[in-house]
């Protein structure tokens, strides 16, 4: 059974930062259609702040330290909707790993579910509301179903489910966030937060592989 140490988690966060940089304009364009065109900026800014904060962590940082540091850095750099949502997600992930020196493969589903739970708690959205939760909820389910596999495989399964979930948001009317006032007009467009969620999990999966 494998264990993902703090250094690996930091590498994974760095991979997310690189992915957000790459996808910034795409995510802004998605947000431009049904929101305020800044989601890519928020995600890039947030994860580049995370990368910077993690680079300053000592070698003895625990996985909980890594996630808590990421939470604080993301929140303070971003604000917006994504800030509290991802900060809460990371704080819950950190709590799930409390006292551990690494994330065991068997911890991976719980970590993903904890993040999804944090987002649901903070944002009070329900599945089908056309938010990032429509990527995170199926991701958590897929991760749970992949229990027993290596962390990379768990994250890969979650990433696949998140991407499919993001795709389903096209058919939804938004109930939360800026797009909620659009009614019918939001239908046909992917929710930017769901799209970025799939990228975040995919970057984790890639880095852990």
């Amino acid at each position, binding site marked *: 059974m494998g264990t993902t140490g703090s250094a690996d988690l930091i590498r994974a966060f760095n991979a997310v930062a690189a992915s957000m940089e790459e996808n910034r304009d795409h995510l*802004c364009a998605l947000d431009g259609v049904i929101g305020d*065109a800044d989601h890519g900026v928020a995600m890039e800014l947030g994860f580049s702040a995370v990368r910077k904060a993690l680079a300053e962590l000592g070698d003895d940082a625990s996985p909980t330290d890594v996630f808590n540091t990421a939470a604080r850095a993301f929140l303070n750099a971003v604000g917006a909707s994504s800030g509290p949502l991802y900060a809460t997600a990371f704080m819950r992930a950190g709590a799930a790993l409390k006292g551990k020196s690494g994330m065991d493969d068997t911890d991976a589903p719980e970590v993903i579910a904890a993040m999804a739970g944090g987002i649901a708690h903070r944002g009070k959205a329900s599945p089908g509301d056309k938010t990032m939760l429509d990527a995170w909820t199926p991701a958590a389910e897929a991760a749970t179903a992949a229990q027993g596999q290596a962390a990379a495989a768990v994250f890969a399964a979650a990433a696949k489910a998140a991407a499919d979930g993001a795709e389903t948001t096209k058919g939804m009317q938004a109930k939360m966030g*800026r797009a909620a006032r659009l009614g019918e007009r939001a239908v046909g467009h992917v929710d930017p937060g769901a799209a970025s969620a799939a990228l975040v999990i995919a970057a984790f999966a890639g880095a852990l592989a």
Partner: protein
Amino acid sequence: MKTKKIINAGEDAVDEMLDGILLAHGDTLRASASSHRAIIARDGPRDGKVGLVIGGGSGHEPTFVGFVGKGLADAAAIGNVFASPPPDPALACAQEVSGGAGVLFMYGNYAGDVMNFDMAAEMAAMEDIEVRTVLTTDDIASAPPDAAETRRGVAGNFFIFKAAGAACDEMMSLDEVERVARHANARTYTMGVALSPCSLPQTRTPNFDIGPDEMEIGMGIHGEPGIARGPLMTADEITDDMMDRILSEMEASAGDRVAVLVNSLGSTPLMELYIMNRRVQARLADAGLTTHATWVGNYCTSLEMAGASVTVMRLDDELTRLIDRPCHCAMFRIV
């Protein structure tokens, strides 16, 4: 091709703006020592006075930072462009302005702002600062009347914050200030129209597409889609459309007094705003209403977006007194 802006690095725009603001208005404003995104009135805190904290994303200047000063807000928490501030600046604001009588958070009703300010309120509560929250929801284009509490807060902030700030300045209790703030919000109605987009400093890409002869009625102040898109109409037609909607919701009776704000979203010049005001006043007069006071200009902007909004606040004696009360802010003054 990137849009043109007079900026340095896009990601430094907000902090450099705040530097420039503090250099220009250091006599009335300062940054909190614990958060440079918390801008505090030099006047205050006052013992026993409710502290008014406003805030939200940048890009709407003079909203929010310009409305910090004696008689209006005590502090503003400043976010990135079109993004709620995180909890820390809002918490710093609460700490700085608390005079022992509680703190009121007021900001536009957006999911991100609610989450961040609520987190800050929880953190303030742990420090024994009582925080209440009143969301502004004046944008009547953003939801039907039966879901009025889900509406966005836009340019009407100006009146709603002003009333609440004056109530604080009158040393009303937190209960009373909260009541005034809710009352002011309930009586404030805004309709906007957008003609052309703005762009974020970081992307310098137009935040929405619109045809060269189109306008969008009800577009949000971050470029969120509105309620109807159509060919550009004349000033009178646009204003009539806005006033029809405002008057039909406002349920005013002949003889009622109102305050009016004709606001530019950014690049629409005063000439156009005053042409609109001419029609606004004609429509109010037709409805038998009396205009107590009118403001015209850039009060709640969306960077360089082209477009305008009309806000009407239905006054009563209390609101009239509060709106008239002097205030002294960096970018706004009543004497």
